[in-house]
């Protein structure tokens, strides 16, 4: 069932966005969303019965499936992540009329008819077998469904109780419990990376393709691993790794004018988005009047690299405790610390410091981090970007490190 008038009738448990009061019977929110929860919980029980989930995983997933009830409208107002409404409106519009919602149709028209990222993400979210699409929480349940499927698939490669630790990372719980596209980015990145690690390049390409719309920069960061492994064998040959590094330097040198313009464009764009003028006006309009582009422009490739390295420690640790302004900042900070500890633990426990594939994976992740560190402006946005980059790589590093350690031990035994 789809909320045919999703733009008109918001079903909210207490207060709706944009100051629209909830409809008279807020109980309906729970009626619709409990049905969504029931379907997901049914899938969990079936997965347990088919022995795809262990008892611990079953309980954990039953708990995870309740999480969408606790984020939007409970812990936080859905307006904190306003993108959710775009995805929800687009899903309901596509399901009821087959066409984009008017404001996304307008964007598509202005882009010359190109599909927007919202439409693409909404189409994927719409595949989830969720019975009701009535509120933003419905899209959160769709995200949970995809997370469950990916978890079950990943159990082929990683033990369930270890995998649960990754899925328990606070930011992952948050993003998979909201109607955002971040969850889809993380899941497709994980699946692509695992396929690349297993040298299944065609399957990896299939799962990399959605990233072209969902998050093009992630496609680029994972693409380095993909091409490095496929063409240069950089995962096992030092010469291959060196050749890849040399080729990358040549490409950077040859395209430096374009690269500098391109990165400066985004540096200024992100800075403008986050700009606060002395008179407390904010955003692009304020930057247009009071901002100075030259403060953010970097003139050389060495300047770009230097700035990226200079910003890297801050990018890794932000948001710092003294800048926390909402509970999500605490989760972001905790994630960053946990991921770094996790990476160190994996390297030590699975003797991966000489494992070239792990080193190569860390280098690919490092390139992504440096790119983000160069552009860093809005803390919340870049904390999201960081997590989308780190979690898939961490899962893949764990998988590769463990697989290689056991295969090395097996060889020793032979």
């Amino acid at each position, binding site marked *: *069932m789809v*909320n*045919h*008038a999703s733009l*008109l*009738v918001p*079903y909210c448990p207490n207060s709706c966005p*944009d*100051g*629209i*009061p909830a*409809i*008279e*019977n807020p*109980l*309906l929110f729970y*009626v*619709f969303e*409990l*049905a969504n929860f*029931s*379907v997901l*919980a*049914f899938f969990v*029980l*079936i997965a*347990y*019965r*088919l022995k795809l989930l262990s*008892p611990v995983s*079953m*309980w954990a997933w039953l708990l995870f499936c309740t999480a969408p009830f606790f984020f939007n409208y409970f812990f936080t107002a859905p307006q904190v992540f306003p993108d959710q409404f775009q995805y929800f409106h687009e899903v309901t519009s596509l399901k009821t009329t087959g066409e984009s919602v*008017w404001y996304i*149709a*307008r964007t598509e*028209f202005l882009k010359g008819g190109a599909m927007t990222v919202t439409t693409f993400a909404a189409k994927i979210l719409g595949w989830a077998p969720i*019975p*009701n699409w*009535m509120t933003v929480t419905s899209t959160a349940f769709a995200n949970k469904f995809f997370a469950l499927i990916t978890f079950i698939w990943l159990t082929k490669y990683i033990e369930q109780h270890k995998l649960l630790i990754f899925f328990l990372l606070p930011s992952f719980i948050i993003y998979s419990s909201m109607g955002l596209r971040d969850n889809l980015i993380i899941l497709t990145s994980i699946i692509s990376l695992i396929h690349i690690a297993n040298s299944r390049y065609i399957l990896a390409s299939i799962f990399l393709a959605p990233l072209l719309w969902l998050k093009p920069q992630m496609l680029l960061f994972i693409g380095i691993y993909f091409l490095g492994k496929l063409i240069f064998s950089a995962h096992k040959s030092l010469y291959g790794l060196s050749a890849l590094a040399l080729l990358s330097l040549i490409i950077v040198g040859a395209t430096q004018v374009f690269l500098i313009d391109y990165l400066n464009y985004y540096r200024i764009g992100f800075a403008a988005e986050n700009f606060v003028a002395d008179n407390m006006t904010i955003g692009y309009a304020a930057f247009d009047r009071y901002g100075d582009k030259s403060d953010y422009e970097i003139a050389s490739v060495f300047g770009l690299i230097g700035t990226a390295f200079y910003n890297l420690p801050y990018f890794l640790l932000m948001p710092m405790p003294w800048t926390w302004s909402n509970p999500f900042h605490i989760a972001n900070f905790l994630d960053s610390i946990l991921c770094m500890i996790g990476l160190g633990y994996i390297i030590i426990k699975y003797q991966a410091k000489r494992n070239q594939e792990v080193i190569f994976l860390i280098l690919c992740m490092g390139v992504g981090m440096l790119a983000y560190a160069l552009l860093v402006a809005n803390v919340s946005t870049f904390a999201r970007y960081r997590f989308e980059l780190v979690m898939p790589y961490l899962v893949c590093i764990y998988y590769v490190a463990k697989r290689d350690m056991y295969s090395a031990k097996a060889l020793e035994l032979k």
Partner: protein
Amino acid sequence: MEIKQIKSIIKRVLDETKIIFLDYVFTKKVLWLALASLPLSTYLIITASPNFYISAVVLPVDTDPQTQTKVESLASVFSSARKDGAQKNTKWLSSLRSTDTAMEMWDRWALRLYNSDPKNTDVNKIPQNHTFMQKLGSWIGGYSLPKYKTYHDLHQYIRTQIKVDIDFDAYEIRVWIQSTNVELAADFLNDVIITADRNAKNIAKERSRVIIAALKKDLVGVKNSSIMTVFSEKINNEYYTLASLTNDLPYYITYLDRPHANPYPSSPNILAILFSNLITFIFIGIALNFWQKNKHDIW
């Protein structure tokens, strides 16, 4: 993976699914619970008030009076035509959301919207309700809460309840509201649209009057003939504006569709309520069956 393997996996999944459905879904308990969902659904449907979608479509027709005939002014009209198209709704929209509109409407609407006491006929004596937390906060903080509703409440109501969608080319504006009381909402919507237009007109009239007064005052001391001509032309323009605005017709907008309600309520969605409760109750039955059959294995 070989075909044999795939076949065996599919066979296993189908067998297990069959067992799951026989053991957990097709049971008396699930059937009873599915039936039990009906009274709850019926209760929810009966107690939910139908919400109707009431809308009107207006066309912005904000064309400032043109008395100039100079070639350059005509050229400027043509060159800024597109820009004007996008901006012409601004004055009316701002007026719709202004306190002035709420203030003007307060006397007409306060009692109809807010009054719960039939004996009360004073718009300034409509009691303001406060939540327990607001009362507690005021008691602890030592500040007083407003006793009666004011036009600020109506202003807030207009800003939050009345929604405005501007079409792709900013030619048509759809103004809508949701309500359980169709007649009241349609009247209210109509009044808000007309009052907003009237207020925008009043502001423009007042502006013209002030400009005329100032120009007349300055004209007395002007000796340069070309400046006198310009001043006179400006005064004429403003008089023309005043003449255009001094009537009861809508000025910044015109109606394409007067406020009317969709005959079918946009909520509650009866099928969705029935279907959702059915799913939830069936799942409760499945979960109970699952618990009974697996309670020793799932720890």
